[in-house]
């Protein structure tokens, strides 16, 4: 569904992404891990279209999207969440969801009808809110929500377009243990046909969700395999899991 072929990106002399390849079939549960500065977010931005790679290509549902901007990739079925909450801060949760749904459903280019009366939109908002457990927050302003709830809304916006491919950038960043467990459950409940790529620091979350794991090291792929293979890898233990190998 989503494929990266030998992606590379340098900022000046600093090579942040080096020859990275990934392949996510439909329904994939794939995690990217690595320490800060290993190029995870840059890889995400290359996949989402915020950055153009210096070399390599990105394929979305078999189509080469390397040169397409983020909004066109989104219209082709790619959605993403952000590491730092990226909401419509002064609008209510209801309006956040309604706008995301209207954008995803491409219903924005209408001048003569009231936005609030777009057929079916209110029902879609309710359904999305229920799915992400935001029903009680619908009337609240996004910026006034608790941090964990903002993270839920962040995920809700990404899901509004019923994407084929979902990129989640550290969905549990900054959350308490309890919030992390709730978020992990939400992610585990995502529709099975979505191809999911997740960047995550919390290894417990990674091992709970992912079927495949790519470990990045200085911008290149150190190892890719099943969680068990990655956990068993000596190189990974030495570099990232902080364990001394006897």
């Amino acid at each position, binding site marked *: 569904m989503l494929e990266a072929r030998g992606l590379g990106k340098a900022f000046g002399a600093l090579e942040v992404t080096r020859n990275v390849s990934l392949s996510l079939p439909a329904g994939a549960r794939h995690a990217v891990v690595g320490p800060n500065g290993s190029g995870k977010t840059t890889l995400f931005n290359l996949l*989402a279209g915020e950055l153009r790679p210096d070399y390599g290509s990105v394929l979305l549902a078999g189509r080469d999207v390397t040169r397409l*901007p*983020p*909004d*066109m990739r*989104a*219209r082709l079925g790619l*959605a*993403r969440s*952000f590491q730092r909450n*990226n*909401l*419509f*801060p*002064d*609008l*209510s949760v209801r*309006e956040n969801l*309604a*706008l*995301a749904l*209207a*954008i*995803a459903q*491409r*219903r*924005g*280019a*209408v*001048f*003569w*009808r*009231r*936005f*609030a009366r*777009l057929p079916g939109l209110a029902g879609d908002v309710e359904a999305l809110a229920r799915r992400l457990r935001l029903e009680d927050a619908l009337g*609240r*302003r996004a910026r*006034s929500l608790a941090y964990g709830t903002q993270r839920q809304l962040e995920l809700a*916006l990404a899901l*509004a*377009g019923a994407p084929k491919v979902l990129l989640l950038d550290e969905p549990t960043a900054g959350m308490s243990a309890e919030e992390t467990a709730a978020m992990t459950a939400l992610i585990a409940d995502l529709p099975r046909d979505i191809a999911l790529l997740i960047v995550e620091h919390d290894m417990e979350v990674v091992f709970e969700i992912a079927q495949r794991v790519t470990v990045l090291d200085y911008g290149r792929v150190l190892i890719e395999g099943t969680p068990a293979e990655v956990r068993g890898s000596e190189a990974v233990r030495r570099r990232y899991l902080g364990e001394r190998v006897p």
Partner: protein
Amino acid sequence: MSTGERRQHIVAALLLLAALAAWRFSGYAGEDRLGEIAVWAIFAMSLDLLVGYAGLVSLGHALFFGLGAYAMASLALFLKGSPSLALLAGVATAGLSALAIGAIVVRLAGVFFIMITLAFGQMGWAYFLRARAFGGIGGMSGVRQIDLGRLGLDLANPADFALIAIIAAALVYLLLALITASPFGRMLVALHQNEHRARALGLPVQRYKLAAFALAGALAGFAGGLQAQRTGFVSPELLVWTTSGEVLIMVILGGLGTLVGPVAGAAIWVVLRHILSDMTAYWMMAMGLFFIAVVLFAGGGLMGLARPRAAADDA
């Protein structure tokens, strides 16, 4: 309808009643003032769509005001065409120019957007300052007026012009209220709130900005055409950057993104300008002080004062 929208419509209705009452009971000078306010109100509302809703701070909006006025005046003078068709042609000229210029400027954001709109505006001003065909620095006078004899109205008469201009302003308000509450208008608010997120969700952000820019340009052109009708005269002053600055002040003074606020801003600014310029040669300083006070003590402009605190904290 949200409480904010309802408050907006109530204030708009009250302003319309006040304008009609003033029209009924004021003399010649007052009638002329009302016409002037109505024209600036249309101009200010068109800029509010850009600045208040789409978050595009233009410092060159007078370009389209001036283009509407010049197109209206020159078509009526040179081609001896019908002045009402010339007014429509002025709207089209301003709108199409805004579409062409917008295709370039909407690629830029923030201070670069401000500077490039300023540059385009000043290019327009510099052109009309020199262009002999359009009268150069002296502009053109004797703009023919639309014949409303069938309605028993004469636009050369300030009372009749004021009535028509007030009705035009009310119609523009209704049109923009419809548009800002539509899906298109909400998309503008979305890209203003968080352009990055709107794009990541799949919104073709530049196309929406361009549509807003062209629409705002066309309505500014309509205001410009009416201005040419009101004064019977066009000059490069219409396009100069301080005209863009003045209409931006009206919008901020009244309250960004409220439509009716800029109407009130236009009324207060025009009235204050006439009162203060009669009183003192330093009237611009007094206007400046007033503007500073409003910006400091009423962040949301005059409409911000009308909003109860609780609603501002949690909508």
